[in-house]
């Protein structure tokens, strides 16, 4: 390698120039020496950054755990109120089915309100054109009421949070009208409740 020297110009930028007697060099270090100093500096910077990143990643993981835990705690605390009401219901000795039904209905409404407080709402699918972005098809079934390709039965309710589907509605999709004289198969919309 030629014996070049690095000189700093007025703007502070470094330029290289051949070693000429009449150009006053500010540094007596060779290019190789300069570069190895720079390399050591960059290496040091890199190691610090890598360590910083690793620490940051660990801190974030810890924070994520805490956030998840406190979010869970909030939901769990709301659920305990539901548990309380079930316990109260179970303690009553009545045999009156109608008041039992009413009580169950009240707890159900409480759960629906709880979900609504998290912006989670059930959505209706019966009769809609099957859409895999909202529905999960579990079976096909002949249906006198709904045309082929439409939801003939909701097996379990779908829930949305805003525009996001949290749980897809599990459905039976209509395969069209049942053939003449064909009995309605078990598990189809007509004989389910």
């Amino acid at each position, binding site marked *: 390698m030629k014996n070049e020297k690095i000189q700093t110009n007025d703007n502070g930028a470094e330029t290289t120039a051949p070693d000429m007697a009449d150009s006053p060099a500010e540094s007596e270090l060779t290019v190789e020496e300069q570069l190895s100093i720079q390399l050591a500096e960059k290496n040091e910077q890199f190691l610090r950054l890598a360590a910083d990143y690793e620490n940051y*990643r660990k801190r974030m993981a810890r924070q994520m755990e805490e956030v998840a835990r406190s979010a869970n705690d909030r939901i769990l605390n709301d659920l305990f109120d539901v548990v309380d009401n079930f316990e109260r219901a179970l303690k009553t000795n009545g045999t009156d089915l109608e008041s039992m039904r009413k009580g169950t209905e009240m707890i159900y409404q409480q759960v629906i309100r709880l979900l609504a407080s998290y912006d989670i709402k059930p959505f209706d699918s019966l009769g809609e054109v099957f859409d895999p972005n909202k529905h*999960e098809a579990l*079976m096909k079934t002949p249906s006198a009421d709904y045309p082929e390709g439409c939801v003939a039965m909701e097996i379990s309710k779908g829930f949305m949070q805003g525009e996001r589907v949290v749980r897809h509605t599990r459905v*039976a999709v209509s395969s069209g009208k049942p053939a003449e004289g064909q009995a309605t198969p078990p598990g189809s919309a007509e004989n389910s409740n």
Partner: protein
Amino acid sequence: MGKIIGIDLGTTNSCVAVLEGKDAVVIPNLEGARTTPSVVGFAKDGERLVGAAAKRQAITNPQNTVYSIKRFMGRMHSEVATEEKLVPYHVTENERGAVMVEVGGKKQSPPEISALVLGYLKKSAESYLGHEVTQAVITVPAYFNDSQRQATKDAGRIAGLEVLRIINEPTAASLAYGLDRKKNEKIAVYDLGGGTFDISILEIGDGVFEVRSTNGDTHLGGDDFDKAIIDWMADEFLKSNAIDLRKDLMALQRLKEAAEKAKI
């Protein structure tokens, strides 16, 4: 410079990951799940569905829903007579006798189908990383031959990914456990997937992996475990109540969910 993604292109499910610092991090897909069903559906209106959405509509559209395409990658039609009978979609061949599937109203090659899954994973990674992804490493079973490896590379290229390396699945698993730092050891890697079960014996020497032997059951996986549990529950119920729950689709569905939960 963009990041390189690592893809496990599975028979039943696929997964994409990226190195963050020293660790591999699994990237959630566009629906927020860590694995994506390797399923592609072609709806009547021409819409293509990939992953969980494709799986959700499978039962309504079985002839145009492709799953287990990995079993056909890089294979000749004459080699897959048994596999062909196990899928509801139409398996055919091109002029060279290579497997093609006829779905969505046209013949498509297994790499073209796999490319749709890879494209979905690519998009998920881009959404997570915030920049375009153009390079990937994809894993394949140790027993894959040259033609099957080439087909996997082709799938990547069709999806817009430069496949930098095809890595054996057991080797990738060993790397994830940091076993490349060991010297001169023999290890057994077993891989129980949704539909396949593989075992491989690897030898490591100075960071180089050599597959010494590989075997397994290409039709045994977690899905069969679910089925065995369902059958056991249904048989017990039949014995005690004289009702076969398998004949009632609603009951069967609930048994299926219970079986999956019990297994985990």
